[in-house]
Structures are given as C-alpha cells and as structure tokens.
C-alpha cells in the first residue's frame, strides 16, 4: 500500500531559516537505518493520514510535521480514557548527507511512515 503521492515534500532554499510554528508539538518516535543507498527513516505515525503529513528539507535538516486527527469518533460516543496524543506534531532531524541532492521517497506501511533517502 503506497501513498507516496499524497505526501507533500517541499525543498526550501538554505537562506530562509526555518522557524518553528509557535507552540510545542508532540514528536513522533523515529528509527533511522543506514543502508547502501543512504538512509531509511521509520516514523511512528499511526493514524495519521498521508495528506496531513508534510516533509520539509532545508540544508541537512529534515523536518516532518503534520496533524494527527482523531477520525474514529462517532456521534453519541464519549471518551472514557485518552492516551494517544493528537493534534500537531513535528520532528526535526539532521541527516549526515547532502539532502538537497538526495532523492526522497515516502511509503506508509502498517502505521509506519517510511522515508527512503538516496544520497549515494
């Protein structure tokens, strides 16, 4: 199941410094793998719709942000307990390769969001 097309990847020029939007956000957990092609990054972003994710690349920084919305709710339901964090998230990572020339792909598998970075 691939939803690559729906994730918007934006490359920013180096001279516009990135500023975080105000307010602290939650940070998705991430695993970073090294592989012959470059890097593979796995984000714990279950329940996040691909269209709600945004990836920004600025210099050696890779920023992933978006919103997790609770879309399971239905009329007449109410919470008994809430433990999953919703709303906006953001994660900034530094990847030791030249991201401006790298090829970046996304893939959503079983609740993970996989990022393939080819910079070899």
């Amino acid at each position, binding site marked *: 199941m691939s939803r690559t097309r729906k994730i918007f990847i934006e490359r920013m020029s180096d001279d516009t410094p990135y500023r975080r939007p105000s*307010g*602290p956000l939650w940070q998705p957990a991430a695993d970073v793998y090294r592989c012959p092609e470059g890097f593979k990054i796995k984000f714990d972003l279950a329940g996040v719709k691909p269209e709600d994710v945004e990836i920004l690349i600025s210099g050696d920084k890779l920023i992933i942000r978006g919103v997790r919305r609770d879309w399971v709710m239905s009329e007449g339901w109410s919470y008994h307990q*809430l433990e999953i964090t919703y709303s906006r998230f953001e994660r900034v990572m530094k990847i030791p390769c030249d991201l401006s020339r790298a090829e970046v792909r996304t893939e959503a598998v079983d609740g993970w969001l996989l990022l393939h970075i080819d910079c070899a």
Partner: protein
Amino acid sequence: MTDNRILELPILPLRNTVIFPAGISPLTVGRPMSLKAAEAALLTEEKLLGVVAQREDNEAEPTPGNLYEIGTLVVINRMMRSPGTEDVLHLIVQGQERFRVIEFTEHTPYLKARVEILPEPAREETPEVEALRRNINNLIQKALALLPNVPNEVRSIIVAADDSVRLAYFLGSVLELELTQEQALLNASTEGELLRLMHSYLGREVEVLEIRNKIANQAQEELGKAQRDYILREQMKQIQKELGETEPEQAEAVMLRERIEKADLPDEVRAEADRELHRLERLPSAAPDYHVIRTYLEWILDLPWRLSTDDSLDLNRAREVLDEDHYDLDDIKERILEHLAVIKLNPKSKAPILCFVGPPGVGKTSLGQSIARSMGRKFERMSLGGMRDEAELRGHRRTYIGAMPGRIVQALRRAGVNNPVMMLDEVDKLGMDFRGDPASALLEVLDPAQNFSFRDHYLDLPFDLSKVFFIATANSLGPIPPALNDRMEIIQLAGYSEEEKLHIAKRYLVPRQIKEAGLGEEQLQITTEAIQAIISRYTREAGVRQLERTIAKLARRVALKVAQEKGEVFTVMPDQLEDYLGHERFFHEMAREMLPAGVATGLAVTEMGGEVLFIEATLLPGAKGLTLTGQLGDVMQESAKAAHSYLWSHGKDLGFDCSETFEKNGVHIHVPAGATPKDGPSAGVAIVSALASLCSGRPVRNDTAMTGEITLSGLVFPVGGIKGKMLAARRAGIRRVILPKRNEHDLKDVPEEAQRDLEFVFVERIDDLLAKALAPVGEAAREKEEAEVQPVPATRDLGYEGGEARVQEAK
C-alpha cells in the same frame, strides 16, 4: 504559517492558575460547564481546548465577563475518569499557543468562543533585553543555590534553556505567583515586556527565598541548641541517678531549707524566706524564676542579719593603734575615743556618722581603716565617686532581669557582720542625673532615725544599719547637698604643716619606702634637712602622697646604686638631692624685700595649703574706674570694688584723700601669678591696703602680710584657713601678720613654731588696719633704708626673741 488564525473553541475556565504555552499541566475538571467543555474538546479531531483564567476564584459558574481576554490553546494529551465517579475528569494538557477571545458564541451548555491565535512574543535583540536575560540567569543561579530540593531534571531544563521566552513561561509555571502576575506574563506580547515582568518576579522570589533560608537557619540553630541542652541535662540526670544522688533541684531546695532553719534570721525575714522557698520547691529548675528565687534566698542567707563583732573597748589600746597609723589628727582620735567610751557605758548607743573633709592625701581613707582596727571592727570601703544611679546604692527591684542588691548590702555581705566601719569615699563626687539621685538615697542610709530599717529594693526587707559606723570622706563640702551634710558630723582635716610632714615622713614614709625598695634600714639615711628640702622644694601638696612618691623615687635610686654595687650605705644630704631627684620643682613666693607704694602682701589658702600672694595696684592717669586682672573670681572682684569705693568715700577720715586721685585716675589691680585662678573675700584687707598705699604714697610694710574680709562700712570680718595661711607666712619669711580680731581664737590651731616666729596684729576696722599696715607718714624713706640694711632673714633664722620684741612693739 498559522499566524492570526481564527478558531472556534470550547472554553475551559481555570481557577487560580494560568497555563503557559509549552507548559504541560494536569487539570482536574469537576464543574458541570467545564466538564461539558472538556467533553466537547475531546470529541474534536485534534482535542483542542481553550483555557482562560477566571478573574475571581470563588464563582462556581463563571460568566464570560469574569474571564480574562487572553488564554491558552491547549491539546488534551491524556484523559482519565476517576474510578467510581463520572463527574470528575483528570486531564493532562499541553499548552500550545496564546489566543485572544474575540467573542463568546455559546454560553450553554458550555462556553464556546471564537478566538484569534496570537503570535509568540516577538524576539528582541536590544541591549536591554540582553541585560535582562543575563540578570534573570544570575537570579536563577541564586535561587537554585537556595533551593537544594529542586530535582535535577528541573535544574537541567532551566540551565540548558536557550530560549528566554520558553524559560520565562517555564518559570512562570514553576514559581508561586499570584494569578494576576501569571496573567500579566501571559498577556506580554513582546520578549522585553515578558522578561521585565519575569525579572521583577524572580527578584522578589529570590529575596523571599533568602529571608526564608535565614529564618530557617536561625530556627534550626536555636532548636539545635535547645535539643543539645536537653540531651545533656537528661544525661546528667541519668549520671546522678547512677551515683545515687537525688535530682539537683530537689537537693538544692533541701539544702536551702536546712540553711534557712539553721540561720539566725529576724522573724520577718524568716517568713519571707519560707514563702520564697515554697515557691521554689514547686518550680522546675528550668523555669526562669527558679534561679531568681534561688539567688534571692542565697542573698538572704548570706547577710549578717544579727551577726556582729564585739568592739574592743580598751581605750589605751585604741589610742595606740590610732597613733601607730597616723601622726597628729588629734581631733579625730579624740572623737573615736569618745565614741568608744560611750559604747562602753551604753552598749546600745547609735554609731556616729562622720564625714572627713580635707584635701587629697591627708589620710582620710587610711584613717578609716585604722579606726576600724582600733575598735576591732571589720572595715568596708566603697567609692561613691561618679556614682549616678540610685539603684546602684539601693539595688534593683527583683522584677528586673539580673537584679542585684545595692552596694550597701553587698558591702555588708562582704563584711559578714552588721557593724562594720563602712567608708563612703568621695561623697562629694556623687553624680546626679535623670537616672536618679544617689545622694538622696544616702539620706535614708545615713539618718540614725531611719536606718534601723533600711530597705534595699532587691531584698525588700528591713535591714538594721544603725550599728554600722559610717564614715564619709570628701575633698570639699560644696557639692554635698545640705540635707546630706546635715546628717553627718563634719570633721575638717586641714593640710599638714611642713613640720607635721617632716614627722610623718620620718615615722612612716621613709621606713615604708626603704622597705619597699628592698633596702635594709641602715642602708639609706635621709637627713632631716634633706627631708625638709624635699618637702618644700620637690612637693607642693596638702597631703603627703607626692612626698611619699618622691621618697620612693629616692629610695629606688639608692636601691639601683646598691644593686650596681656602688656602695652599701648611703646618707642623703640636702645638696645631693639634685643628683637623686633632679632640679627643684617648686618654689614659694617669698616676702619681697621692698614693697613700692601700691603693693601689699596677702595670704591665701589652696587645696595644697597656704600661699603668700601680692596685690599690686597702680594708677592709670586719665583713665576711669577699676581694672582687675590675674584670674580673679567674682567674690574677689567685688571685694576689690568695695575697697575702691570705701577709700573713695572715706578718704577724709583716714587722713589722706583718695577721692581726688580716683577721680582723675583709673586704677589697675593685678594679682600674680596670673595663670592661677583666685577667689574669695579674704584678700579684702590686702587690696584696701594696696589702694590706700597707692593714694597716700606710703608703702605697705614689707614684713607684714594680712588677711581678712572688708565691708563697705569699714569693718574687718574674719576668714578661714588661718592655720594654712600662718604656715605659708612663716615659710615666706613674713614676721608680722594682720588678722581680723575675730580670728584670734583660731590661733590655737597654729603650730607652735609658727606662733613663735610670727607677730600677730588683730584689727577690727579698716582705719585701724591701715594705721598698722602702712609705713608711718614721712618714714617711708627711712623704712626703705632699713629694709636695705636689714634684709628679711630666711624662715629658719628667725629667732624667738625677735618675734617677741616685735609683739611688744606693736602693742
């Protein structure tokens, strides 16, 4: 990219707190409206909720008007219901952004509002903001140092924070701030504003922390000391138990009871002591009153309520003792013997209260000691010089902390008997100020009609002072209040004459100082002439202290020579004194060989004894009135004016006319030595003689000195200090003294040798005086020649016959 978004949010009113952006805080929601707002937020996709602080805490259901305008957008991270109840929600929310309420869109079932998301406070890079950042960092360091219990995580968050806005928000949630202060932080729209607020809050917080720390430290120290004392005391108790001793306070009470039972106390005192002991027994030893009562009881027990020494009533022995210690002073010795005789006949007689008045060094204090010795009584001495506080004499009331009995009671305790000889030294030097008047307190002590029940403030029990032999001493009677003066029997001790000093030196001072210097009796001999020279040329005093010091110096010099093995036995002759003692220190005015018209010889007394002084008068042609110089006091100036006026008005009666002279000329009177202040009326006759001599041109006889007070009507009044004046006259080589008639009886005090050498002329009126003082008319020239032919011989050359002849001549 999310700037100025407009959202519609359920609003949760917060009581008493504010949630800052970035802050994670737990919330407990219980109010129905709040519950509904929270539920509504949970039903949204993003779990967003607006929280706004309530202006007042107490209202259960807040209205929109009661809420602040600026709130915080939060995400609900966790939600739990309390087990068992549906009505309480526990939320953990995370602050996101600040917002401003634009309008409330719904009021029921919960508040809902359209809000405008506000941008983060604009970062600023001005020097002021930088300074604020640094100051805040300093304050944080201080605060952390004062707060040892801050968890390490919090410490590292604070220290590692690189964004001052975040840090400020974090501190805002950590510090204990008022709601209004927290809201002000939230309202701040620029970094500068935010940091300024935070700086002031933090500064205050640090101050509070410092004070709190200080207080805590002090409290801890005090507590530590109290605990330590307690532990030590408990240990002591245990040790005593082991040793088989009873508890100390009980032992003490038992001991005091025993002592009270054994003591010989008057009834009233015993009753009071028993009462206090009862109180003591019921108090724990730690009670502050315990020690007060114990000290009080000890004082009562220590005082000699009924204990007295037996007077030795052997009159001959008493006389011997008095003679051993003091030369002459017969008046006082007689007085003591009289008193002993009275005691012998009437043992209940009251002790006298004597007051010795005299110049320093005449032996007042040591006389007290030998009186005590002669009577076989204890001697106690207290110096009242400079005492200003009545309480020092009579004690402080027991209500005061550290109260003590007064000096009188303390002296009695030291004496251990109730009939000591108590010497009150320097009563004339009692001070008096707002703290009280000790002289008035002495009135009670020294009144035989009252002092049988003297009450010390501390004891508050009557003590019988009537057996105490009080002796006060003073240098002069002037400063003693009349009421006090009246209660004492005044005994004047005049200064010693040179002959008396010679005896004192030979009998007491020289042997004592030879011993002091470690010499053998044979090793130092001072000839009589040498002692006389020391008395007259190396000392000037009424007493003998300076004389004793000078002899001590001489003895030390000799001791030095002996130690240097320059000889074994030394005999000091008058001509060697210069080697031992240096140059002569004093000289006395000697009779002047020739007196020009306008100069007369007067006599004065000082504390050092008598002195000869010269009155010099001169005419000032063309000037007016009277000029007086030579440090003359008011009384002396007045007597000069009286002399001037008398001569002016009575010139005709006297045989020479002064009025014309005084009309045309001013008069200047000078009395050397100019630096020594002089006062008193006794120079009156000398002044009038000098002035009369000035107008008549007849000089005053140069062998004649005079003393006496004058009145404007021409009388001559008696004066004091005759003994000292006669001694001075003799020393100065005067042969003839003119005295007021009414001083005739004072001559019995004058030592024999002076009586022998001097011719006394008594006068009652000024005209009589002038006839005897001035050289006869026309004989001025002859007198002058005579003076040149027969210079006035030195004192000791004056022969007996010469004096006798002159007396006859004058008659």
